[in-house]
């Protein structure tokens, strides 16, 4: 963060907590928006307005994952705008935060 032109290195990290069966659809949306990459992390449990859940691989219905992707502002906005109504229906959580990347060309 002492780099010459920090703006150029700045990207947005989008984190989406979603039901595992939905991952495939979010990946398709990411591809449509030309996102170059993403990573999916596992979760153990959680709690929200719709109650508690814990990882449950047997039924698969209460297992959630964290989909993360790093990209520039415009793509992040376009991507999250498209997903918002879907995520609303599924009660997912979406976060955006600023990150600095090393090889900005990659994102």
């Amino acid at each position, binding site marked *: 963060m002492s780099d010459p032109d920090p703006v150029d290195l700045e990207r947005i990290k989008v984190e989406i907590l979603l*039901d595992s*069966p*939905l991952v495939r*659809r979010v990946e398709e949306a990411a591809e449509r928006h030309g996102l170059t990459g993403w990573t999916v992390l596992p979760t153990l449990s959680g709690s929200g307005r*719709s*109650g*508690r*859940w*814990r*990882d*449950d*691989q*047997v*039924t*698969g*219905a*209460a297992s959630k994952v964290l989909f993360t992707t790093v990209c520039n502002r415009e793509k992040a906005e376009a991507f999250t705008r498209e997903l918002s109504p879907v995520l609303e*229906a*599924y*009660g997912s959580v979406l976060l955006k935060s600023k990150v600095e990347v090393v090889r900005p060309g990659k994102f």
Partner: protein
Amino acid sequence: MPAGFETLLSPVILFFILGALAAALRSDLAIPEAVAKGISLYLMAAIGLKGGVEVSQSGFTPDMALAALAGLVLSFLIPIPLFLALKRIGRLDTVNAAAVAAHYGSVSVVTFVAGSQVLGSGGMPPAGYMVAVLALMETPAIIVGLMLARRGGGVQVQSGNGLLHETLLNGSVVLLMGSFIIGLIAGTDGFAPIAPLFQDIFTGMLCLFLLDMGLVAIRRLRESRALTWRLAGLGIIFPVINGTIGVLIGALIGLDTGSAAALGMLAASASYIAVPAAMRLALPQADPGLYLAMSLAVTFPFNITIGIPYFVFLATQVV
């Protein structure tokens, strides 16, 4: 104790009760999810193989076609009256009523497996083809459920992109049917070298899985916010009615005692694998906490402890 109910003292059921008690007492006992899933897949492969091997001996019979037809019809029709009951008596909205109804039209593999165990140890194992009936009954109710949701209100069903595909190729359906066919091809001789895994240790594995199911069911019951007393009542009345109808139809179409009882168990049981996954995708507005609580935390324990012996008893009376 009436005939059939002594199975409440078999280790299979006792492990379920142990899990339920541990969860009720808030013990931290827990089986790792990956292991529970592994055992669940093992049970499906084993039950599929066993069914296939048996059919490879008995050959295809008219009974089989009748049982399959009965299973399909039950699976398509059960959700409709339940949907109405869930709306009127259970006071659910259209979407949730449709989602719950779909679960009861479909089946629970482990209820079937535990029931077969009980029937087998009582000397009246269900016919091998009942496994194929089980597989056939997994998915039709999903379609009926979605239709009910769509008709009942202006709900937009999130289908389109291959929902049918995802439903028909649900992992449990594929594994069950695939193992059934492998058993059919392999026959008794081909099965012999793998029998130590898929047959000898089967009952023990079922114990471990039911231990986990007991934990899961009661934890879910405790954490559920959506389950009302009315709904819990329906979760017990549904299996009694559906199961009774299933046994009677089994008797009517001339199935043997074990198979008629098994048809009752299939009708009575509610899905906790194929349907929840499909509903989460297609009806995201429906509350998973609700349908899993009814299927896993009310109906499953009821069937395992009281439903199964009752269906066995009924079948011995009417067949």
